């Protein structure tokens, strides 16, 4: 996902690439579940966001499902 693809860009402060999520979680404890925090970098423009169901590119169909795809659990 490159920023050039999306007309609506939110430029984060500082230089370097913007990583849209936490990549390391520290002090993890037994019997606790952790979902990494997202971080807002680039967003879809509002019309694209509406069509896709989210303004956040990294969250768009993150499980990669397509119509007709059935889960084959074996």
């Amino acid at each position: 996902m490159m920023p050039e693809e999306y007309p609506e860009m939110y430029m984060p402060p500082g230089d370097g690439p913007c990583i849209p999520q936490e990549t390391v979680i520290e002090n993890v404890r037994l019997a606790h579940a952790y979902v990494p925090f997202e971080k807002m970098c680039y967003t879809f423009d509002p019309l694209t966001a509406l069509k896709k169901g989210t303004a956040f590119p990294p969250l768009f169909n993150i499980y990669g499902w397509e119509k007709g795809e059935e889960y084959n659990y074996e």
Partner: protein
Amino acid sequence: MWMYDKKLEYPIKISRPDPRMANLIITQYGGPDGELAASLRYLSQRFSMITPQAKATLNDIGTEELAHLEMVGTMVKQLTKDASLEEIKKSGMAAYYVDHDRGVYPVSAAGVPFTAAYIQSKGDPRTDLYENMAAEQKARSTYEYLINMADDPDVIAPLKFLREREIVHFQRFGESLRYVQEYLGNKKKFSMGSLGKTGAKK
């Protein structure tokens, strides 16, 4: 409190009647993993939630689910409004028709009326957030199955939108859990059982 905004969150414009599909989609209106369950669950749980971040999340996702309930009801209506009695007879929706005509009533796809047994509001903020994360996954799966059963692009588009919302909600509940877990974890360090809910020493 709530004010109504006179528009849908996502546009629904279905020209082809399809009572077969309506009978399936209605499960996200009154079924176990549907939007009525979701809104009632979150709007009930919010009263016991802790941390400002989690309270806001429950309040606002609960509110968005009402908008989704409206979308699902709209889809059912548009799919049945101009369906003929013949089409209804052939579609599997005849049993629903005899009790409700083309009205919208909260049942599952199998015809089971809505019940609060579909939700939990356990009072324990940790427990409630896990319940919600599971609920969002169940709703996502249901939308996938509904999309698999659909063939009209004007039906599939709003279903895909609703499916994506479930993924985003899951992420936000997961983030809320981080705040709640941290709060409870820190509270434990300083409370020795004799401290009250506010952490003040008795």
